[in-house]
């Protein structure tokens, strides 16, 4: 079953890539943004599996985006691999420091405290005139191993990279969740004290998850920055982080593909609401969110599970 599913993920990835390249550009753009956000939400889902909901993933999303922006704009590094490497390293270092403090907290305090950190970054960026304050700045077109596709090809390049990242990181995340430390996360959610009795370190489990989630969020931010061509502090604002939680809840935590699919659907829903009801799109989003919480407590993935007639998993 594992290998089948893996193969399927690959096929799905290829299909998205092919579809993305064939689709009208506005749709493939939407897909790329959704892939970026999907990666952030994937990290969030890893945390949620351990019962922790971060309202501050915007922090790393923004860090990843700004690293990409600063490298392309000020250091003239445009290689997408170098940029990714840099944003992962920066975010991991920051997460390793903040995590020491944050991973002592649980539940709503974890949520609020992580939000506070991302708001501090927001405040810092607003004060920084060299980085364009609230206006942000533009990101130059990326290249890959010396190949620079120019403005027309750049979005296709980012799309391809994004799809590759989503598929490979999705598989990695899946393997992680099915590993011992992955299951330890669920043990943290269910009962921390029992985990400690069994000889596991709750702090270590949470800390590692937090860092992984941060790296995923930074990658998502980098993808978004490269495809949209612009970064601003709004990415660290609490509403951005709230959106990620929205998407995570929409997809559910049952499967690593859920956040990605939810991200695509969310972007579609939002742009659709925008086009149909320019005055009341927030209301549409609100009702959609309520409907999901009321009728699909385990997210959209429960549709899939219901369809399969399998025993529904208990999730948060």
């Amino acid at each position: 079953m594992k290998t089948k599913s893996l193969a399927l993920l690959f096929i799905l990835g290829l299909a998205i890539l092919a579809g993305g390249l064939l689709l009208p550009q506005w749709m493939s753009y939407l897909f790329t943004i959704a892939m970026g956000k999907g990666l952030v939400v994937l990290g969030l889902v890893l945390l949620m599996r351990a019962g922790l909901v971060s309202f501050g993933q915007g922090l790393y999303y923004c860090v990843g985006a700004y690293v990409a922006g600063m490298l392309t704009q000020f250091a003239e590094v445009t290689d997408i691999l170098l940029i990714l490497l840099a944003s992962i390293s920066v975010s991991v270092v920051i997460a390793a420091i903040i995590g020491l403090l944050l991973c002592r907290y649980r539940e709503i305090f974890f949520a609020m405290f992580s939000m506070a950190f991302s708001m501090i970054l927001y405040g810092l960026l607003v004060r920084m005139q060299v980085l364009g304050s609230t206006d942000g700045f533009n990101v130059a077109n990326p290249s890959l191993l010396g190949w620079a596709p120019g403005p027309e090809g750049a979005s296709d390049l980012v799309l391809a990279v994004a799809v590759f990242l989503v598929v490979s990181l999705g598989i990695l995340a899946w393997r992680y969740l099915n590993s011992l430390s992955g299951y330890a996360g669920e043990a943290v959610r269910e009962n921390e004290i029992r985990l400690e009795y069994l000889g596991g370190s709750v702090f270590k489990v949470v800390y590692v998850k937090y860092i992984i989630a941060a790296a995923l969020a930074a990658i998502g931010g980098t993808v978004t920055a490269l495809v949209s061509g612009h970064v601003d502090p709004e990415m660290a604002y609490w509403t951005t982080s709230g959106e990620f939680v929205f998407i995570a809840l929409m997809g559910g935590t049952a499967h690593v593909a859920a956040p990605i699919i939810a991200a695509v659907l969310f972007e579609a829903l939002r742009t659709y609401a925008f086009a149909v009801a320019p005055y009341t799109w927030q209301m549409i989003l609100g009702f959609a969110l309520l409907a999901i919480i009321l009728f699909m407590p385990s997210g959209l993935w429960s549709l899939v599970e219901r369809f399969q007639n399998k025993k529904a998993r208990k999730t948060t």
Partner: protein
Amino acid sequence: MKHSLLTAATVACAMTTGGLSLSAHAADDYKLGLVTFLSGAASGPFGIPAKNAADLVIEAINDGTLPAPIQGKGIDGRQITPVYVDEAGGATKQTSEFRNLVERDGVDAVVGYISSGDCLAIPAVAEELKKLTVLFDCGTPRVFEEADYKYVFRTHSTASMDNIAAAHYVNDNVPELESVAGINQNYSWGHDSWRDFTETLKVLRDGDIEITTEQFPKLFAGQYGAEISALQVNSADVIHTSFWGGDTDAFVLQAAARGLLADNQVIFTAGETALNSLGEHLPDGAIIGARGPFGPFAPDSELNTWFQTEFTERFGTPPTFPAYHMAHALIGLKLAQDKAGVGASTEEVITAFEGLEFEGPGGKVEMSRGKGHQAATEMVYGRLERVDGEITFTDIVRYPADCVNPPEGTETVEWIQAGMPGAECN
């Protein structure tokens, strides 16, 4: 597991593609994307007046009822069909919505953007998609200073003009000026406004100016008690503020109630939008700007009379500067298209638009900066004075475009700090 992925993917695809194929392209209209704030705090003071102006002007263009010298029905011989988009949500979302407008809805041109962040993000996409785009209200000078664009135009001056002119005005019209204080919102607009104002003042006075306090409350903070006290404690001859919208209203109400406005000379660089609603709280002598020769400062012309009367009649309030900005963008676009001729290609329209000079309801617009893509206009300040309870203005000073706008090819801050070489003031 296998089925689960497939099902999910199918559901996702079906919902996305099904839900989004809205585009229906009628052949014989000129589809115009219009992006302004329809929700959030900027919608009341900026977004909706701009949208109202767009409705009014588009209808007049379609009917051919705009006063002379603007002629002809529609644009490019076609009737304009507006497609409205809410500007809320930040730059990333707006680039996505811009693509939707161009590629899904197939618009012929886009007019929009109030937020400076959006104005910086959109041009790169406009270039990539090769779509004529007119920025209509945002203030940041960075758009054409940091890059050259072919498809992007801006038909109003940058916010630097407001603050350079403000410095000129207080320097010339406030007797015994020694110190200034500032209260500006803590974001780019506020920082830039305060920087341009103080830097110009330093140049004009050879550095002989004291700054008593500079306050940067959070955007939309709404509560300015502590800031007002700080302005009272660190009293200055002139208080500079670039507040807009609800923040201006709140500041005016709270400052007036505490006597700050009566005891101090305040200059509101974007204060015009508050005149209609809160005029009675502004004391005589308050210096008001309208981001250009707009509203009460608009020059007498047939076009302006038409715009003022029709707008007031239809929407119940007189047009404020965002409405003028929108009118200018639409009229500029139409005139460029007219000049290029019916059936002209986008490239021909761009050539016609570059360096265009035209008269809008708010006077003359010269597309003389940013290689012909960025407008420069005159800037006006005046002091509020009540005559029989009616708000009028005295000490009106009009600064020519070349006095308060940096010349072609210069960067605003550098130009100010270099002593504003080449400025042609009266």
